[in-house]
């Protein structure tokens, strides 16, 4: 799976979780850019990503997922 495929999959998940059909994310998108992105929704995002892409983030890795770019970088490694 390449970066673009992952990116569009992640974008779909963001749209569902925040219920905004036309939400556009960028690599720099973080919890400051989306109002609803609180710690609860962060968990929802991560579990939805884990389910959708059939991967698992380790406890230590979760702390590094500060923005969309970091998420996708880590996913790329896991999906190789």
């Amino acid at each position: 799976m390449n970066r673009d495929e992952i990116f569009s999959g992640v974008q779909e998940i963001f749209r569902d979780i925040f219920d905004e059909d036309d939400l556009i994310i960028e690599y720099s998108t973080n919890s400051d850019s989306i109002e609803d992105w609180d710690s609860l929704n962060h968990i929802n995002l991560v579990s939805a990503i884990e389910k959708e892409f059939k991967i698992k983030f380790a406890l230590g890795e979760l702390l590094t997922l500060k923005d969309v770019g970091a998420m996708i970088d880590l996913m790329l490694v896991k999906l190789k």
Partner: protein
Amino acid sequence: MDYPLDVEYILRKKKSLKKQLLASNDRLQKKIAILGGSTTSEIKNILELFLLNSSIEPVFYESDYNKYFEDALFDNEQLDKFQPDIIYIHSSIVNILNFPKPNDGEDVVNKLLNDEVERYTSIWDALQKYDCAIIQNNFDYPIDRSLGNLDNYDIHGKTFFIMQLNLEFSKNARKITNLYINDINYLSSYIGLEKWVDRSLWYQAKYALSMAAIPELSFNISKIINSILGRAKKCLVLDLDNTCWGGVIGDDGLVGISIGNETAVAEAFETFQKYAKELKDRGVMLAVCSKNDFQNAAEGFQHPETILKFEDFTSFKANWDPKYQNIIDIAQEINIGIDSLVFIDDNPAERDIVSSQIPDVSVPDVGRDVIFFIDHIDKNGYFDPIILSTDDMKRNQYYEDNKKRSSVKSKYATYGDYLKSLEMVAEINSFNSLYLDRITQLTNKTNQFNLTTKRYTYSEIEKISSSNDYIKLYGKLTDKYGDNGLISITIGCLKNGQCFIELWLMSCRVLKRNMEYAMLDELVIQCQQRNITEIIGYYLETEKNKMVAKLYEDFGFIFMEKNDSSSVWKLDIKNYKAKNKFIRTTG
């Protein structure tokens, strides 16, 4: 939002699901306090969806993280102000303070157990001041067992400790009438402990269960709430061919259908029939709705191996009319709301037509394989009772007696002659402790003949029962065909020489029997004994109680005023003449 749950979809789409659910129909508002022993935010969100899906709009109070004990036990102004209708205590294995240690003696282990139980009994005691339903988790098993299989039977085992705790919870729930157990011990074993727990989520956010388990938990809580609110279904409507037995009786004949234990297929149908019979034995009514010749259909239940018999069905419709028409007839015949029916049919086309024509009927998508039919009935909790009352178990008898009554109705010249022939005797009296359970139950599930649809908790009924500010009548009715049980309730609040009727209800199984007149007569007598000269009645219209819109008018009350969906009525009882002519009353 029904079994089988699409857990991922619910979690991911919860916001848009909520929007959709909020867009539809009128809802009942309920105040629900969640007292958590671990994080509850997502439980609250998902529970909200399930409740909205059952037309209940929850308003939540959520305790601070792991403050369930403090919130319950100590003065809590916020919770006092909130006045919960329902309190849900989400505790679990993570909240157990002390498990036995390997070198603890038996007395120490027993003390640990008692201490743990006492923590909860003190919570339930303290919460009684709110007069509301309490839903309490029992405990899930530990996922790690350092004692291995011995954990299950050594007194130091965690598993053994939890089994004992759960047993104590069950005993308490039998004693405390407003305490309901949310059986997470079953739920976690049903979905698998491995899926139930997510260690990572525990360390990150202190959830005692996994994200995937939250919809299952919330669904289960919503089933309990629905049952508490008297929304359990009442009648299971069954198709016949390939639902109650394998094969088509019209083509294959009695010897050709599969039922019994001769073949694997026959055994699967036998299991399904046994499940339906179990439901029937505890008060769920059964009905048949099948496209068949009546003779053929009835013959199927003469099969030597059949579990269900023709007499087990309160209503039996086998003909070639559209099924939705038959189902409407079934509901009318046994006098229950159409939303009290669940329809099981192996044929997807028939299911579609029924659910599109009468959307209020529950038509689970059971598939075509009988093996899975039970799950769809069981796991959707349609018929979940909150208490097994003797009245429930007798209910089928009442309806059978009713069938006898209506079959003789045509023999009489006038309806009055028929009523006379029933030799009815009513017992109408003030509440007594024997009947408080049944009275509470009736106030929560009677929808049609109910003037105000006011719901009461057990403790409210208990209070009214012992208060002098109320006239509180129950009515039981017997006739020559049998006992109808306790079927009518009237509660009047006395103030300034007037009696305000805050509840008047009657079970539809005694409709048109003059029972309402007998109740009114007794109400008037009791009012007169206390020098009350006026009775004020209210009609609060709901979707289901239109049948009593004119009741007070019929009683001779004078219309006073009307707001949107409610009206007020007044009766001067100085010159009241008794209205009941057909029922002999005893006090």
